């Protein structure tokens, strides 16, 4: 039966009852139709009787959006939804993640296929204001040279993120543990399924992807927009293998304004980092603008201090256009310059992204570069990601 049909039947029942009580009703129904209505109203009465037998003083059981399967249990429904994970009833536990396959053909190198990794996202929210979140990555599972057939596997296991958070209200939340460094825009959700290109912008090398320490963050909502802030600091690198040379200590902050549910937003970030008794500083600006099928994103960072003697800067601008339903054309230009980065670096990325359904992502990106070195990737990279 079509969803909502019982509602219709219920209304039929109400109309019929009004008729039998002699109350005014629409006079235009033909007798045959009235007979049908009476039969249906009998059915509807049965539906209502069945509803009346349901316990009216207990909460109806909530469900996931579109579960692939659902199993009733004493802890509530255990449901799995593609792209949203496995939910364990009312325990607040949800386990999901994403997996990524990659093919890359670097300039003057053989093509490689790799099972890049499986990332598990585990959320535990036993009571509403408290949540514990973990991203566990099983990385570098398998890689093969597609010309020579030489394969290698060097599986690693690391906690990309692990934190506990408690919210007192919308404006004040405290998070402790290891989390994405809240600097810039890309780094807030930098993983493969959530970005538009298979290649990453060079700007991400300006700071550590993760911070281990504490962050206070929140939102206030003036008029139709929202101000979001983050203040954070690092006391120790929880997983030093994750970043090549993680800094010892950091302190930073980010302020962001989003207008009209994110139609456009601007942000600024500040970061001070200490490594081996030397300090480096970062100031950044970023913005995003959405209009119909278009999205424009840009980030700029300026770095100075002992770690970037005397200074360096990096900027990228990226445009995305939905050219066909779920098919996106992406272009990005990036420039890195400054006295600490001689000669300057120019990168251009063009590609296509196809998201046939929300939990699948295919990307192909070609990167141009004006620098030939091992530090800079130039060539083609494709990825396939599934959210599970």
């Amino acid at each position: 039966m079509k969803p909502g049909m019982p509602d219709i039947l219920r209304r039929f029942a109400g109309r019929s009852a009004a008729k039998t009580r002699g109350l005014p009703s629409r006079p235009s129904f033909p007798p045959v139709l009235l007979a049908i209505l009476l039969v249906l109203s009998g059915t509807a009465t049965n539906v209502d009787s069945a509803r009346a037998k349901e316990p009216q003083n207990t909460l109806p059981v909530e469900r996931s959006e579109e579960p692939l399967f659902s199993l009733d249990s004493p802890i509530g429904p255990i449901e799995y939804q593609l792209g949203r994970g496995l939910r364990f009833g009312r325990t607040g536990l949800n386990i999901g993640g994403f997996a990524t396959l990659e093919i890359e053909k670097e300039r003057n190198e053989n093509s490689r296929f790799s099972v890049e990794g499986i990332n598990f996202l585990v959320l535990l929210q036993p009571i509403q204001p408290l949540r514990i979140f973990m991203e566990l990555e099983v990385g570098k599972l398998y890689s093969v040279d597609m010309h020579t057939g030489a394969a290698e596997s060097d599986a690693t296991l690391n906690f990309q993120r692990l934190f506990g958070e408690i919210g007192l209200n919308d404006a004040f939340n405290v998070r402790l543990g290891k989390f994405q460094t809240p600097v810039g825009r890309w780094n807030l959700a930098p993983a493969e399924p959530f970005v538009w290109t298979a290649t990453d912008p060079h700007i991400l090398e300006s700071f550590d992807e993760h911070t281990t320490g504490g962050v206070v963050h929140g939102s206030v909502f003036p008029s139709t927009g929202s101000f979001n802030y983050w203040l954070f600091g690092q006391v120790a690198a929880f997983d030093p293998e994750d970043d090549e040379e993680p800094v010892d200590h950091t302190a930073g902050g980010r302020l962001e304004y989003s207008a009209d549910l994110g139609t456009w937003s601007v942000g600024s970030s500040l970061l001070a980092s200490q490594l081996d008794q030397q300090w480096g500083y970062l100031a950044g600006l970023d913005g995003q603008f959405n209009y119909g099928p278009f999205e424009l994103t840009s980030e700029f960072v300026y770095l100075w201090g002992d770690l970037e003697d005397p200074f360096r800067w990096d900027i990228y601008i990226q445009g995305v256009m939905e050219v066909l339903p779920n098919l996106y054309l992406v272009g990005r230009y990036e420039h890195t310059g400054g006295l600490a980065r001689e000669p300057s670096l120019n990168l251009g990325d063009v590609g296509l992204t196809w998201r046939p359904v929300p939990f699948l992502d295919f990307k192909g990106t070609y990167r141009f570069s004006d620098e030939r070195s091992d530090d800079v990737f130039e060539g083609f990279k494709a990825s396939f990601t599934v959210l599970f």
Partner: protein
Amino acid sequence: MSGVRLLILASWLLAVSFAWPAPAQERLAVIVNAEREDQLSIEEVARIYLKQRRFWSERESIVAINRDADSDVRKAFTERVFGDEARRLNAYWNRQYFKGVLPPLTLASDEAVRRYVSLEPNAIGYITESWLDASVRAVLFLPPANPSSP
């Protein structure tokens, strides 16, 4: 199927379609527990359903309830609250999933939403206006999608 039966079926379908407006043509009521005193704008409702706003003014956590994804009521609500931004909701929830935030859970009927909200003090939901009664309080009415509809 005989001609008479076809005529009866057609008459019934015609009567249903004329006599009772589809959700897209009926006002939607955004409802909270009857004991709540909050007033909400459409922007605040949008933020709640995006889980950007997560607390009531007295610091209680908001429990937002959606209708099931395929329901007409859900489609009408999404269209009226998010407008053109609805096209970006899938990408938005994917990013939130990465951050450990899941979309609101769902219930399968207006009756279930009304009952849930009447029993859960911190809940918010939405139903077609004809399902409204004294067990819940409407904080916002969303007009029909097409103003020329009856």
